């Protein structure tokens, strides 16, 4: 167990370095002159040159790369060309909002998705199963900006239950979190349903019944734990999906997270910030992946024994 955990954690380091390299290359590989684009259409050649030096773009690419990596180790991601603040600080003020949003959305998605999936599996073929399947299809196929707008119209404009936009009160997170969770609810409930149906037909579940175990034990202990492995895979993947979805959701609900920061910096051609956000999001995904793998091995002993 310990050894598996340590090797798995160790394998994160090269992945993070790779992510940093990709974030670095991304902006240098797209066509056009970053200094020129960044400075804006009205800038004088002197201003463009000044910016080029400031961004370090006048130096050979490998020097830039070494610099970038060296700065990473000291926790620096460069300076925003727009605000002059450090990129780390810009991200630092936004990241907690995105994490808060993703956390609530994921929590809602896991609880509701698993519940729908388990009930669907237990009552498969009955009316309730069809209703839940329909809910999951709607969740997966309805675009978040449309659902988001509908929710704003209904719950804030008409009913006035929740604020329509911003993050001023604790209740502000409700609408964006629910909107963001819908897609994952659909996905997780489908996966849970099929994994649970498989698990319930396991020989081991029949053994548990032959032992005289109660229904709660058979469903909650014997079957569910086996069904969790594929469900966790989907949850991990959904997290990535969710970070993408949060860009749209944050725009719809005016949520001051990292997604909005990214959209704004792209609009402002603020290269260091875009680069920093890409890197931070990549690191988040890597950490979620790590957590998923460690969870697997906690749940399924066959994983940690390597077969």
């Amino acid at each position, binding site marked *: 167990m310990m050894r598996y955990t340590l090797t798995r954690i160790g394998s994160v380091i090269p992945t993070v370095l790779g992510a940093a390299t990709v974030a670095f290359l991304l902006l240098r590989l797209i066509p056009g002159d970053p200094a020129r684009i960044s400075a804006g259409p009205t800038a004088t050649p002197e201003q463009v040159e000044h910016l080029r030096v400031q961004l370090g773009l006048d130096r050979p690419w490998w020097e830039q790369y070494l610099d970038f990596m060296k700065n990473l180790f000291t926790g620096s991601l460069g300076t925003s060309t727009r605000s002059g603040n450090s990129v780390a600080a810009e991200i630092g003020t936004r990241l907690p909002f995105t994490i808060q949003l993703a956390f609530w959305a994921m929590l809602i998605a896991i609880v509701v998705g698993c519940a729908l999936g388990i009930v669907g599996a237990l009552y498969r073929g009955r009316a309730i199963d069809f209703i839940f399947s329909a809910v999951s299809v709607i969740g997966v196929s309805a675009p978040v900006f449309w659902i988001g707008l509908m929710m704003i119209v209904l719950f804030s404009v008409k009913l006035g239950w929740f604020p329509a936009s911003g993050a001023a009160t604790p209740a502000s997170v409700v609408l964006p979190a629910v909107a963001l969770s819908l897609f994952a609810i659909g996905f997780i409930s489908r996966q849970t349903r099929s994994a649970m149906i498989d698990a319930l037909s396991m020989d081991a579940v029949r053994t548990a019944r032959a032992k*005289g*175990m109660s229904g709660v034990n058979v469903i909650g202990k014997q079957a569910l*734990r086996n069904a969790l492995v594929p469900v966790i895979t989907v949850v991990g993947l959904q997290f990535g999906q969710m970070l993408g979805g949060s860009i749209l959701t944050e725009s719809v609900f005016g949520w001051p997270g990292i997604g909005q920061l990214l959209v704004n910096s792209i609009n402002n051609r603020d290269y260091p910030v875009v680069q920093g956000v890409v890197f931070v999001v990549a690191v988040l995904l890597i950490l979620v992946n790590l957590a998923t793998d460690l969870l697997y091995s906690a749940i*399924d*002993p066959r994983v940690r*024994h390597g077969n």
Partner: protein
Amino acid sequence: MTSLLSVRDLRTAFNGQTVLDGVDFDLHPGKTLGLVGESGSGKSVTALSVMGLLDRNGKVLPGSSIKLEGQELAGLSERGLREVRGKRMAMIFQEPMSSLNPVYTVGDQVAETVRKHLGLSRRASRERAVELLRMVGISAPERRVTEYPHQLSGGMRQRVMIAIAISADPALLIADEPTTALDVTIQGQILALLKELQERLNMAILMITHDLGVVSQIADDVAVMYAGQIIERTEAQRLVGNPAHPYSRGLLASVPRLGMDRNVPLPSIPGSVPSPADWPAGCRFADRCEFATPQCREKPPLLIERWPGHEVACDHPLVDGVPTPEPAREVVS
């Protein structure tokens, strides 16, 4: 002698299709009944019907009776069955690879049964689990309890299954082809273990197998199944020596014996068990029987006691390998 398990006119259907068509047998305390027959004859469905473990599309039909220690199990609620399963009757299966839960230690899986039926504390049931594993011949059981099923061999896993099965000291153990998936040497060990535990715990065994060799080794009585019915029933030694049903004789002929010429292929019964949808109106074995007469195909034979303690469902039962001429319906009462 009063019987421990008494099955009468057991009829089971899947999605409305009858697959057990009036199964009758008795099992006496501490004895072993071998239930034999080819694949698809209904042995497992019989066992699962008794345990109340049929899939959700399977039903024991009204009119069937399954009595264990005098208690009627047919039609009993799931809650009622739970009090009997694992406690008075237990079951082990053909696939030791998948019968244990892969995500819990074997100790957990044994201890959980002990806790449920004997009401012991967590610690005491843990200790009891170690004892049980020792009883079924697992070495270093203190260490084994912390291992997971995938760390054990097939034979070991079947031993763990047996430990679970005997944990509440049941009166009946149903073993559905418990050795089929194992190596020959391991097969012998498991059978010997079952025999030993039976004597120690005075437990009756319903041994399901398609191997008559296993039956002659371990069973007191045998019931031969064909197409959802019992077609012959008698003492194991008598069946092996004097099969009266042509089907039983065919099964016996296909068992390899010591001293046989290995170059001569074993005779096998031509054809296969008809599936429930294709059961013929008369004798269900007639199409594969070398002695079948036109009358055999018209009228289903009844299971009749033709010799003391020897019942057979055939209108021309074999005597010394020769079919009796028709009609031979004298009944010994």
